[in-house]
């Protein structure tokens, strides 16, 4: 974005709440079941069926609200949002319109070391729709099939204020929100399974202008990357349009992942009139202060608290602490290591370095991989007591990642024990030194490379198992004796 324009972004995030059963019936919410095996007359919208609110949905919504510093009003209600679509069995969605469960709030983000507070407008409970399955493209398919398994899965829609000013900030917001939802234990937040979905409202305005520009809403953002790219693309598109003297139309656009661009879906004129009205099948919901207090008392540690703890207790840099608190699994891994191995920075380096690299490469989460905290600790201790070198450790770590074996077993199986015995190393060093008199000359003449040559030869001979510090010491002594 050029300096003349400012991007204004607000996000609407749909988080699937982590319940066993749906929001208004007892059907399972499990992902990936055979089509239409998790439905009943209620969630399939049969005549005469009535919704019964799942109490856990409200509890998780309150929990989220508390994490986001929202107000939890004593009274909220459900409303019907009317629209016809084959994946919407009642032809209305039960949602919350003017009295949502959470009002206001904020979350803090950190972009390039800059802290920023992003406002939360509201969060409301609603039911998910089903899924349509087409043969090929929606416009040419001869028929469409309807899968109602997802119908009635509980969602919390979290709406931010238009407080973000760059794609990076939007990404940081979504990442932070995700980690908060994960820490609060309210959602699985799996973007690829759709349990965390995001729409972005994007507008631009000349720097210094107070009024917002006309916004467009971008849908189909299925990853953090897509969010960032789509916002950048859309802001640029709007800027070019304005510079060409066009006006921005308020519309809904979709992100085309393949072509990496946003396309118009429907204009404001084509937008639905949802005809919201109070849901007569559900009485207004009274939320007692006792209930809210009880939930508040059970709130787990949130990412911000955990981050400060890591900085204050272990002296970790903010950056490390931030990464280690991205998910509760990350933090729990770290905390478990620290119980047996007190060097926080070393643990952090390994988690963010080697482990992070391998997880990324294999597209795994920390709790899905073979490395266990106790194994990492075992390995770090082996480095510390000198039985393996740092270089060997990397190879062992990769093997641990692949096979799940303990470092001790790998070291034993591969005979990878570091040679730290002077009696073994000295003859090797002496032989190599004796066999290369010209290099000894070079060394005496002050050529630094000579030392490197000898170390290389020694390591080669010992298959990398020689203790590097000991080799260094013995080699220098030997050369000095020549």
């Amino acid at each position, binding site marked *: 974005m050029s300096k003349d324009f400012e991007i204004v972004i607000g996000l609407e995030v749909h988080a699937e709440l982590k319940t066993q059963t749906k929001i208004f019936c007892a059907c399972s919410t499990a992902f990936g079941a055979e089509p239409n095996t998790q439905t009943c007359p209620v969630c399939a919208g*049969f*005549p005469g069926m009535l919704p*019964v609110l799942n109490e856990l949905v409200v509890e998780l919504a309150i929990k989220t609200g508390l994490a986001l510093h929202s107000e939890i009003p004593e009274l909220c209600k459900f409303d019907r949002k009317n629209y016809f679509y*084959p994946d919407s069995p*009642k032809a209305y969605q039960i949602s919350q319109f003017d009295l949502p469960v959470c009002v206001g709030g904020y979350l803090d983000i950190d972009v390039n070391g800059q802290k920023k507070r992003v406002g939360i407008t509201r969060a409301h409970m609603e039911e998910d729709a089903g899924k349509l399955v087409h043969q090929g493209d929606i416009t040419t398919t001869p028929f469409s099939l*309807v899968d109602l398994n997802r119908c009635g899965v509980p969602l919390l829609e979290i709406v931010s204020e238009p407080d973000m000013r760059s794609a990076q900030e939007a990404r940081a917001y979504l990442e932070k929100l995700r980690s908060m939802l994960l820490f609060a234990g309210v959602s699985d937040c799996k973007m690829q399974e759709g349990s965390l979905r995001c729409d972005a409202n994007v507008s631009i305005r000349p720097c210094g202008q107070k009024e917002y520009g006309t916004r467009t809403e971008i849908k189909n953002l299925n990853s953090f990357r897509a969010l960032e790219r789509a916002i950048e693309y859309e802001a640029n598109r709007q800027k070019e349009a304005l510079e060409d003297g066009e006006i921005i139309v308020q519309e809904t656009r979709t992100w085309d992942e393949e072509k990496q661009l946003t396309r118009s879906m429907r204009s404001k004129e084509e937008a639905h009139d949802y005809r919201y009205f109070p849901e007569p099948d*559900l009485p207004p919901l009274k939320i007692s202060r006792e209930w809210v207090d009880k939930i508040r008392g059970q709130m787990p540690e949130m990412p911000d608290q955990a981050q400060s703890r890591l900085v204050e207790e272990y002296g970790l840099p903010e950056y490390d602490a931030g990464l280690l608190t991205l998910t509760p699994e990350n933090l729990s891994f770290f905390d478990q290591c620290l119980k047996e191995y007190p060097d926080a920075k070393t643990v952090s380096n390994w988690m963010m370095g080697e482990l992070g690299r391998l997880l990324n490469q294999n597209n795994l989460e920390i709790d899905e991989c073979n490395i266990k905290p106790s194994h990492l600790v075992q390995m770090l201790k082996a480095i510390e007591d000198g039985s393996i070198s740092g270089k060997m450790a990397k190879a062992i770590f990769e093997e641990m990642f692949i096979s799940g074996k303990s470092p001790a077993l790998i070291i034993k199986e591969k005979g990878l024990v570091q040679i730290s015995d002077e009696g073994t190393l000295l003859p090797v060093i002496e032989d190599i030194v004796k066999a290369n008199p010209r290099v000894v000359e070079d060394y005496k003449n002050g050529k630094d490379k000579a030392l490197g040559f000898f170390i290389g030869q020694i390591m080669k001979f010992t298959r990398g198992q020689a203790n590097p510090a000991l080799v260094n010491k013995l080699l220098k002594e030997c050369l000095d004796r020549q």
Partner: protein
Amino acid sequence: MELFELTLHELQERLARREITSEEIVKSIFTRINRVEAKVKAFITLTEESALQKAREIDTGGKYSGIAGIPLGLKDIFCTRGVKTTCGSRILENFVPAYESTASRRLHEQQGVLAGKLNMDEFAMGSSTENSAFFATHNPWDLTRVPGGSSGGSAAAVAADEVPFALGTDTGGSIRQPASYCGVVGMKPTYGRVSRWGVIAFASSLDQVGVFSKDVRDNALVMNIIAGHDPLDSTSAAIEVPDYTSNLDGDVKGLRIAYPREYFGPGIDSAITQSIKKALLKYEEMGAVVEEVSLPHSEYALPAYYLVAPAEASANLARFDGVRYGYRDFEAENVVSMFSQTRAQGFGDEVKRRIMLGTYALSSGYYDAYYLKALKVRRLIANDFAKVFSDFDMIVSPTTPTVAFKLGEQAGDPLTLYMNDILTVPINMAGLPGMSIPCGFEQGLPIGMQLIGKAFDEATLYKAAYAFEQNTEYHTMKPDLGVK
């Protein structure tokens, strides 16, 4: 006396004394149905075989208590497992639910025997049962006249001795008005008293399940079974249900009865006004205190009702889109035309009219002026009643402005038809219990008296209605259908 002529409690007594069997009752009922149904046309579906089978099972078990072994009818709005449930509409012409409504389930659990499903105005929208997609039902007192609606089939079947009792639903008068036209007892209890689960919704904040019967005791007996909290209906009240038969003692001494002047004004047939005034004198004779009161916002109830009810209906009926069940236009070329063609062909005119009214009232830009305003009027109406009930136990009024009108007479005139509900609609808007009992005749056609109670005080209505019945003969009168 033939068995089909008896009341529920008379049948109970004979069963208990082992003088008769359930099979005999069911056979008698179906003999009667075979004789008169061609004239009355109350039933959409008859379940003779399963009724006989169940009756025999009950006879074999030999345990007769409550309604065990006694036949009953259900308005075709109650979902019945394995039995076609049409709601009077083409769009559900072949719909067979896989589930049972809570109200009918409670009757089945007490071993009641389903005789069949009863005709109704399509989706309960109407006051004459002429809006049924299948056929019109005829008033047993005069076959050229309507039985009222929307629960016209239920009222006519009870009046014609085709079943001893039946369930109906009442959104703006759909139990009380046909009960009045057919000269039977009809109770619409407090909103929330009976579960709506499995009852096809018209206007969810107004719909309520109730009972048609030949006399007050029967009505109370059935209400005892169907009333009470249902965890499957979040709007059903967790309030204890008294035994409604326990205070049927004829004593109304000191009962404070109000009659609202707005319900006796112009537009109400003078014969009806006279009949209700006579009934009030009777109550005074029996020791009740009768005073005139005012319900000043009454005139706004009907217009407000015709915003709230269609608005809710527009959403409730949106699910009939041809995707999952019911009628579908298979000729449609795409999904949008499938929706519109299915609905254009599946719904009748009155249903379409109300869907359009409701959709309009909820539309952006009109919501505040119509729907929201109507909710405020609703509050004022409820306040009117609350004020009167701070000083009185019961309100009495006519049930309808006229007696039953001729078939086809008002068919082309929805506004006149809507006026039929002018005395019953306010009670739904306030969520209160209302009952219609026979209190006279005008040119051979029954007149109904409406008793209105405090929320969840159906007991007082039953008590007062029973007292009136004990001192009059109207409930014993039967229409002459020209057959034995």
